[in-house]
């Protein structure tokens, strides 16, 4: 364990970004959470990405109002299948994307259940966003108006997207990041790296360059 270093999360010298936002994707299996994630981060689409194992979280640094923001985008790791998402998943989440499939009504009606779960476990100030995915499909059963109405009822913004055609995918993440940034600017949310004083980072140091980042 040589090369262990002491890193303070609040020491911002030499950072390649101004802030970090933890964002979660939530919704039923098969609605395209991972596809949205992979499309946004890697600009790839593979229709056989049916379910999620293997995706933990992905990172993409974006420019929000002139600030470099590192988006940490978390997938459910397949634990949504039996609604066994760990409560720890919600810790520190600043944004939560609720995703349903416009071709599958059940995933749409389940959004209310997910909304309830999120309210139980996530920070009250976390910014939510409703997404109707697979808008390219002709087999659509949930109209955009229905999505809009639900979003209004829940009091959260709404976007329809297609990970396959790359429609509105960037909009999802940029819209959410901007809303989070507004909350941070008005001190409603505490950004990661600003309010984590006293946290000890235990990731290994230079001895092992292939370690992924930690925040």
């Amino acid at each position: 364990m040589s090369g262990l270093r002491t890193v303070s999360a609040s020491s911002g010298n030499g950072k390649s970004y101004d802030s970090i936002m933890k964002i979660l994707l939530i919704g039923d299996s098969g609605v395209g959470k991972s596809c949205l994630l992979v499309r946004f981060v890697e600009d790839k689409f593979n229709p056989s990405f049916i379910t999620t194992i293997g995706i933990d979280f992905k990172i993409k640094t974006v420019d929000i109002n002139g600030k470099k923001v590192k988006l940490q985008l978390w997938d459910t790791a397949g634990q949504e299948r039996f609604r066994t998402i760990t409560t720890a998943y919600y810790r520190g989440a600043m944004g939560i994307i609720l995703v349903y499939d416009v071709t599958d009504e059940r995933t749409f009606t389940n959004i209310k259940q997910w909304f309830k779960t999120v309210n139980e476990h996530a920070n009250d100030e976390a910014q939510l966003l409703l997404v109707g995915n697979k808008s390219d499909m002709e087999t659509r059963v949930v109209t955009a108006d229905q999505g809009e109405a639900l979003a209004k009822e829940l009091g959260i913004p709404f976007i329809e997207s297609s990970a396959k055609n790359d429609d509105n995918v960037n909009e999802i993440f940029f819209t959410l990041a901007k809303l989070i940034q507004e909350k941070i600017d008005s001190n409603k949310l505490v950004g990661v790296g600003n309010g984590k004083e006293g946290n000890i980072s235990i990731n290994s140091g230079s001895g092992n360059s292939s370690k992924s980042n930690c925040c």
Partner: protein
Amino acid sequence: MLSPERRPSMAERRPSFFSFTQNPSPLVVPHLAGIEDPLPATTPDKVDVLIAGTGMVESVLAAALAWQGSNVLHIDKNDYYGDTSATLTVDQIKRWVNEVNEGSVSCYKNAKLYVSTLIGSGKYSSRDFGIDLSPKILFAKSDLLSILIKSRVHQYLEFQSLSNFHTYENDCFEKLTNTKQEIFTDQNLPLMTKRNLMKFIKFVLNWEAQTEIWQPYAERTMSDFLGEKFKLEKPQVFELIFSIGLCYDLNVKVPEALQRIRRYLTSFDVYGPFPALCSKYGGPGELSQGFCRSAAVGGATYKLNEKLVSFNPTTKVATFQDGSKVEVSEKVIISPTQAPKDSKHVPQQQYQVHRLTCIVENPCTEWFNEGESAAMVVFPPGSLKSGNKEVVQAFILGAGSEICPEGTIVWYLSTTEQGPRAEMDIDAALEAMEMALLRESSSGLENDEEIVQLTGNGHTIVNSVKLGQSFKEYVPRERLQFLFKLYYTQYTSTPPFGVVNSSFFDVNQDLEKKYIPGASDNGVIYTTMPSAEISYDEVVTAAKVLYEKIVGSDDDFFDLDFEDEDEIQASGVANAEQFENAIDDDDDVNMEGSGEFVGEMEI
């Protein structure tokens, strides 16, 4: 070496794995690992391993197996993660206490709960609190910590430092003198004592090699050894054995105590001037969830509210309460708390751990070092009014740990004392803490001269000034406001040990051969209940023993590395700041040479 018959790992089994190196160790996990594999919509019909119970050991095991390539179904009969390691809200605790007293939670007894009306209907909500059933601290140099990093589970967690270890003696809470600087600057230690202490610290960092020093004392007690060999006096002996070593009684054997003392010293200054870490939002409950997520990323299937009813070792079919079945090609691993009805093989849980968890409405931060929200208080044998023979340990967490709201504090007290004595000892420790807190918070301390005060035996309290004042003349004016009090007795087959030893966990080796007619658990392997150990040291050893039973070898236990998918982040976190090594600064003690992980040493 990886054997050729070995099951391909998670990384090797996917099409995107293109590494044809002769000996792919450590395994490199591509960043889209698993994404090609579509998951079925229902629970699988067939798995390699079924694990029941999502406690610490089971969760570490699930993650190790998933990344090794095993197809794992991991269930829990509860509707929450954690099982014996759970972090629970107050409402969940209420339900748990009822279940314990109905007898439906095995291995726990005598649960007594008081909850103030301020929680729930008052200013606090049940969810403001996260109460651990088996609270633990993480040493900065330990096997679990290295696995947290290797598995990247540390990314799911937040850690804070724990540097304050108090010893209670003569009605006072004395803060540990634990660094070389502190030893040297402590005006009250005689020069001779300082030298003896330094000599011992130098020895203990590399003790095994120096058999000529400790071997003659191998079968004697640690206090004899420290007194005779290093001429240390009682206060130092007690600090070393009970605060630094966190041992349970005076009969601790020399090698065990040395191991435990070194654990503290080698952990010190790994990340800063403190030996241990605490996870935020809860201890083992958070860590076990982290390992469960890691296992899920590695392909394990999770189902809560799923109770095992029976396992048939002939057909290899496990049946659940909801009627569903799964064929298990290899092993069924069960926590004793998740044993099916009519089970006949649950190992005897002969040791008791008595616990008392309190939530106090008082923002008392005097226990903590600045910027911290955690402290350990140790009540050595004979220090309490009850005349305790075993140690009472109190692990204290404040609001900064996010397990309780501002203005409150959580005390986790536990003892390895057996039988009815245990509660008396715990009550005496609670009273001592209560008195300290009341005096501390009472307005207008009598006189300021008492800030440095001599206690009965001539020892001066320099730190924790207010707490350090003697109780003897103090009469509390008020009672402390307790928001929550929970007593319970937990049973375990793991003895309160000095050194983590894999034999402790090797309980039911012959089980598979001895089938009992009518038993619902023939052929299963039981895990062990958490012991009284306040550190996580037992977890990895226990998980490894089970892993080896399933896989055949523990060579590739978490032997993996992740492809670095993210932008090089060196610049982001490269602000490494080496703390001066307080123990090692002007001595030739070789810390590197003694740097094995404590928990792995006896394997």
